[in-house]
């Protein structure tokens, strides 16, 4: 079922003060096919289809780039720490090996 592919969720803590280092968690819906599995019925290989690159931008600056292999689990999750010096837009972009690009943004507000 490929519907919903690329839908993403980002979680950041509820209340952030300028200067805080906070954990950002993100989830995206994606099959993360390794290319090593076979279709049980047709015996044909299921083509590889996985996210191979994730870019995180905050306040228009790239803060993290991740390279993924097919070993990252289906409906992949990742988290990292972000130093929040001020409010701004957090944007995560996922690119898969077929060239599809998905992204999700969230507004980071500070108190």
């Amino acid at each position, binding site marked *: *079922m490929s*519907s*919903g592919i690329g*839908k*993403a*969720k980002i*979680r*950041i*803590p*509820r209340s952030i003060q300028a200067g805080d280092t906070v954990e950002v*968690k993100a*989830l995206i*819906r994606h099959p993360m096919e390794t290319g090593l599995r076979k279709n049980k019925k047709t015996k044909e290989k299921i083509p590889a289809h996985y996210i191979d690159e994730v870019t995180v931008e905050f306040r228009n600056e790239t803060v993290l780039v991740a390279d993924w292999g097919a070993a990252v*689990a*289906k*409906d992949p*999750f990742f988290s990292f720490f972000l130093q929040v010096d001020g409010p701004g837009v957090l944007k995560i972009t996922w690119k898969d090996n077929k060239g599809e690009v998905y992204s999700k943004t*969230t507004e980071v507000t500070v108190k």
Partner: protein
Amino acid sequence: MKTRRSNVLLQGVLGLAALAFVASPAMALDLKGYDANKDPGLYKYSENFRGMAEFPPSDGMLEDGKALFNKDRSGQSCATCHGEDGEKLVGASTHYPKYDEKLGKPKLIQHQINSCLTERMGQEALKWEKGEQVMLTTYVKALSNGMPLSIQTDGPMAKFIELGKKAYDERIGHFDIACKHCHNTAAGTNIRAEYMSAPDNTGYANLEAVVAKLPANPERERRLAAGAAIGSGSVDHWPIYRTKWGKLATMQRRLRTCNKNVRAVVHDYGSDYYVNLEAYLGSISNGMEMNVPGFRP
């Protein structure tokens, strides 16, 4: 196409996203997603697995269910009868499987959705256990999250619950084993890596009473060591997202898979056999809060 509710949907999506950490007061419907902290079945898994349950892969899938609920189907949507985002259905799923007068037997949410589609809306029935049916069923169930499961056990339902219990207790298949053997007698132990859950509502509170009832023998010692047979419910947290399956699945899939594994005849989805079984399982989970979609390995 004028009934399309994309604006409502968008609000809903944003609201749900906000729900992750901040409850949104502007939402018409206070839809609660799965809450790992209220899931009494998670204790048996590793701390790491429980950590995943805080942000499970199914997070966000209720939005898909909501979109399907509000989806335009030849000028109508589920919302046409059941209110915006299904607000009139809050609490309804706590009674499923539910007795249907016309059919003279209990039905699942899936049956109800299909009869709405075919009889009232002139649509095709949804295919069993395919994405659309599972998502919609999950959404309708989740509308009752936080409310106690309350499946009717008397009146016309008594007979069917009894049939479900009979199916639960009866040895079947090439392996010649009944549900009750793995899930009651051996509850709390492992069949290889699979933890045998006790699908009832005894919960933590009754742990000591449950253990005290076990005969004093090595079996009891083993089960004490394994965490004993703490009933952690069943129908209350189904459909679930199972990492092994990598998608949402209904209790119907679980029952069929169990049957297949003990090398028994596998009946059709939604067949009387499985509806009765699901009704019985639901009846022994009565009182537990709905918490859909659950999360399991």
